[in-house]
């Protein structure tokens, strides 16, 4: 799972409705894999990313390259788009835990796949 996907997942345990995003990453194994840069796509995603959550997640992973706030000229800032590309599309979570900041529910990531299934009583 790449960080772009993590940026779209939230806790869905029954009754857990607030402060349930972003899921906090713990004990993660990361891997960098090169991917082709697609600037059109990145521009399209700019308005859709939860940027603040992305930066917070990255800082906890010791990824410090992203500016704290989205640059005003982000869409045409080549240097920024390069960094964004590397962070959201080339950084893979191979394994680890995602913990809900609200209810502390743990979602495991194995073989790169987040397990978002819940037991019956949690739905």
């Amino acid at each position, binding site marked *: 799972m790449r960080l772009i*996907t993590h940026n779209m997942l939230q806790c869905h345990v029954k009754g857990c409705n607030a402060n349930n995003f972003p899921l906090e990453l713990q004990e993660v194994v990361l891997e960098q894999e090169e991917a082709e840069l697609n600037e059109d796509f990145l521009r399209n995603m700019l308005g859709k990313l939860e940027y603040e959550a992305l930066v917070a997640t990255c800082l906890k992973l010791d990824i410090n390259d992203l500016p704290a706030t989205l640059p005003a000229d982000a869409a045409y800032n080549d240097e920024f788009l390069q960094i964004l590309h590397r962070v959201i599309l080339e950084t893979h979570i191979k394994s680890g835990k995602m913990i809900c900041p609200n209810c502390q529910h743990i979602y495991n990531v194995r073989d790169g796949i987040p397990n978002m299934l819940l037991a019956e009583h949690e739905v």
Partner: protein
Amino acid sequence: MRLKELEGYLQDVAVFEEPKIKLEQYPTTAHLAARMLYTAHNTYDDIENKAVGDFGCGCGILSIAAAMLGSAYNVGFDIDPDAIAIAQENCEQFEVEMDFILTDLSATPAPSNADGEGASNSRGPYEMMKGKLDTILMNPPFGTKLKGIDMVFLKKGIDLANHAVYSLHKTSTREHILKKAKEWGVECEVVAELRYNLDKSYKFHKKQSLDIAVDFLRFEKKPRPDTTSP
């Protein structure tokens, strides 16, 4: 890429080793996948440079086809880890970048109790994805084992998609789906009527192979009303 060429490549996508009856795991044929994606790309421009979701992705053939036509981001949703494992191998084989989420798309919102508790958070972990996936593809279970599941998948896809949803449904359900689309406020177009050739996948199939009529449907969300004007 030509249609025949795409279909040719897709013949090599591995399918379920032991399909699970209760999940209605029928592999989407290369024939169907190629036609769906070729049309989505060439007629509607819903694939190239887009974020594409794949509901009940199974072995990943629809997403692999999308990636071959230039989609920029692919994510598959499935409840079966065995299917996802095959899909991952397929992606490796085809050098396609795709993420997967192990999740249950059949879960329906629980009826809310008197004080409304439990109602708001039963829609799965992908609420945040709303409007972020440009196009959603699916060949949903047809609901022969779990009645109505096809419509649950479809409704979720339409909720999440930013723009378009492509799906396959039994032709016999067409009237019902057109009516629902109207209720949901989305355009629905029957792009083509296709034959779905199901090889004898399960013991309860009496014939060696069964041809069923399926509709290839495209749903388009209407642009949101302009909220900036008074």
